[in-house]
């Protein structure tokens, strides 16, 4: 099994190295004449005020929770899907119960208004 992975390893190493080549090229080739004006932070032409770290809205987090829950669901769905042929109708019923429970949480989410972007 492990013998199948050298290909992926080669691709992985290549994909790690590849983005660095333009960066290194830019570092080597580009002329560097920094002045005070060039080094200042650009903010629509105005003087930059305050921290770069702005407060995010909690809406992002509520979406992220829903994403995590249904991501975990996918991990359960995949082995079920590949072994479906060996089990048959019973698997369908069991997974229907599983999905119904999760859909209940989605409905709660929806009714509560957590999915609205205000």
């Amino acid at each position, binding site marked *: *099994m*492990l013998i199948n*992975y050298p290909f992926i390893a080669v691709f992985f190493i290549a994909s790690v190295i590849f983005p660095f080549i333009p960066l290194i090229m830019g570092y080597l080739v580009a002329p560097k004449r920094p002045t005070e004006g060039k080094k200042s932070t650009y903010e629509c032409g105005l003087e930059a*005020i*305050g*921290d770069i*770290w*702005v*407060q*995010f*809205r*909690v809406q*992002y*987090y*509520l979406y*992220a*929770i*829903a*994403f*995590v*829950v249904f*991501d*975990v*669901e*996918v*991990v*359960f769905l*995949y*082995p*079920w*899907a*590949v*072994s*479906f042929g*060996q*089990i048959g109708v*019973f*698997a369908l019923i*069991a997974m229907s*119960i*599983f*999905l119904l*429970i*999760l859909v*209940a*949480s*989605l409905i*709660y*989410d929806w009714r*509560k*208004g*957590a999915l609205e972007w*205000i």
Partner: protein
Amino acid sequence: MELLIQIIFVLISTLILGAAVMVVRTRNVIHSALWLIASFFGIGALYLLLEAEFLAIAQVLIYVGAISVLILFAIMLTHNVTSGEGHKFYQRWWLALLVSLMLFAVILVPTLVGQDWTITARPSEESAIAGAVEMGTAFMREYLLPFEIAAVLLLVALTGAIVIAYEERAQRRRILTLAQELALRKQQQQNHAEE
């Protein structure tokens, strides 16, 4: 071939442990979350090396993809107004270090000494290693009840997290203007100083 696997194992464990050390000692929380992602990724590679392919994918999907996003959003949402001040550790952090090191020693001794980790039932052919198909049948047979309970757990987690984190519309903080933001920040600094 064995040497190659050993080299890969050493590299992966260096990545895991080095990234984990950076997670606990970096001051900036965002950087520490990024190191955590690196550590999770190394653990996924270790699963691949242990031939648990489905688990490696699940690790990347859930930990690298979802939980780290959750952690990053939580950091962004809890921007500490007085960030940069205050200690990252408790004053008695060396006590925690001592406890951790002692626990490591306590675990390590029986792992290395006196225990014969003989491999009892090694399957002869490669196909005997259980994979995603066996996992699916196991979910439908022996582990049917835990499988359904996992759905209930996810339901409880989603509802509970939304109940805790959701703000009613009336209480929701509007996006402040810069002047209001600075005034709020100044007031909070004063409160902090009074404490």
